[in-house]
């Protein structure tokens, strides 16, 4: 079984680039561009890891990861943000978020973080 990765970003070009970057990593990749889509997928599917953008209309990435912890406690939680300075470390710790990845991201780092989160 391929591990299932859910990527959440309000920017569909970012979703497309992330999907492209992770093409050969052997994941089944699901994407959501709104919080509603993300929550629906969390309910419908077994998910092994969730990678979410932070600043989005409607819900922040931290809120989505909080929901993910409630609905899919086993899934690894990763946050990605173009404004990482605005995220407090204690909020990450409180939600058990493994890692905060800055945008623009380094492909090799991103792949390594996902691999270790899914180990």
């Amino acid at each position, binding site marked *: 079984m391929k591990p299932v990765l859910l990527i959440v970003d309000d920017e569909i*070009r970012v979703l497309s*680039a992330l999907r492209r970057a992770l093409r050969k990593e052997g994941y089944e990749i699901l994407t959501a561009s709104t*919080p509603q889509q993300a929550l629906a997928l969390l309910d419908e599917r077994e998910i092994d890891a969730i990678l979410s953008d932070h*600043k989005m*209309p409607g819900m922040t990435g931290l809120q989505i990861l909080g929901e993910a912890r409630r609905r899919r406690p086993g899934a690894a939680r990763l946050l990605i943000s173009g404004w990482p300075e605005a995220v407090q470390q204690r909020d990450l710790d409180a939600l058990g978020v493994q890692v905060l990845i800055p945008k*623009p991201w380094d*492909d090799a780092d991103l792949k390594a973080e996902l691999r270790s989160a899914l180990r």
Partner: protein
Amino acid sequence: MAQPAPVRIVLLGPPGAPESATLGALSRLGAEVGVEPVASASAAGARALESEVDLIVTDPGVRASELRALLDRVRDEGPPVVVVLDRDDDALAMDWFRRGAADCVAARSADEALAVAALDVIRRHRASRERRLAERRIASLRRTTRNIIQNIHGALLVVDGACRVSYANAPAEDLLGEPRGSLVGRVATRWFAGDAADTPLRRTLEKGERFRGAELLVERSDGQRIPVAIFCGPMRDEQGRDLGAVAILQDLSEMRRLQRQLFQSEKMASIGQLAAGVAHEINNPAGFIDANLFQMEEYVADLRRLWRRARGLESAARSALATGAEGLEALRSELGAWRAEADELDADFVLEDLGKAIRESREGSERIRHIVQDLRTFARPDGSQRVWADVNQCVDSTANIVWSLMKHAVELHKDYGELPALLCHPGQLKQVFMNLLMNAYQAVVARVGDSGELGRIAIETRRVGDQIVVSVQDQGIGIAPEALARVFDPFYSTREVGAGTGLGLSTAFHLVSAHGGRIEAESREGAGSTFRVLLPATPAGPGS
């Protein structure tokens, strides 16, 4: 009453004759008369000019040449000279009168005549000396007053009832750019821009109005325009009769320059606040462009591998063509390898996705270009000339910049009405809209926090009569009534120190005033605020 000063007489006698009859006669004039004998005309003249001598008397024994020298010396400035002659000689006396003697007395009758002549001459001399002193005092007072007025820090202008200049100091001449002494008699309103009948000077003359720092524009004959503050009021004499008006003009150019600097730094401060949001907005496309480039590099490596297979296939095909059946086996194997390679790297997908990655990346770089361009047009200071601009465009480009910062917390509604072109400083108007939008955003954030809830901000533009109205309405925390009364005061801020300059709204107010408009604020605590910018439409649009 002050005691009259003792009478001082200088007696010029022949050298070596101190005990003359004249000295005796003068000594008998009384105790309050001091007599100082001297032996030469030059000594007598020097004494007379340097101290307060009332009278010079010359002894009959003095030589005519000495006497002439003395009279010449004291003629204009010095005390009167009474000449004592050794005999009654009208012709001689007339001669000395002509040379400037105040009186001539014969030695024979010296006692009585000398006393009468001396006292009379002294009285006349003292009276004229006092007059001279008074005149000197008046002249000195006039000089002092003139120095004060000329050196006062401010241009002083006095006009008569017909608004003609009756007095102007040097700073006034400099400020109005006119040569020294050329202002008197000219109508003062000629130097002020706008309706002459409505200048403060005219209103002072006609209605007695006073002005304290009213601002107006001086238009000099060399074409220079200088902003000034005028302080003026009616000028009246002790009886309350109108004499005209007196005005002090203060050059505001330097203050205006500092104000412009302040406004520009306020703008830079708000750009600083924006920077984080803008960085975020740029990091998104930068992120996917970067990732796409990385991926495209891998695609190119894959395609290069496939191309190498194609070359192998090509040479196998050539040798098969040359050798016939023998080469077919090798060709078959190369073809199999090529197909396997193409399937393994999913060549169809790679080619299609490569095109997609390029298109998406180009769209991303276009977006970065737009963001940077918006930011640059916003940061650029306006020139000194107003230009025709579309207010809707100013509002929209500003909203686009701020959007990146606020989109996670705000639901933005834009409703732009049709507006006439406006002759304005577009950069200043953008700064005003930026301030209003940033305040609205902060009010919304203060209410919704990080809850993920969105607060509404509505931008509306309308033409109402001959005014352009831009309103920014937020569903933020609102402003308490006592704070609302002070929102346009400089440095007034309810935010914590460091969270804002406290100059945003006061700057906005100034910039809108400079366009002849005003800002209105309305607010309900807990419900939100509305700020309305009202700008008078420019009377004639471009090309009309």
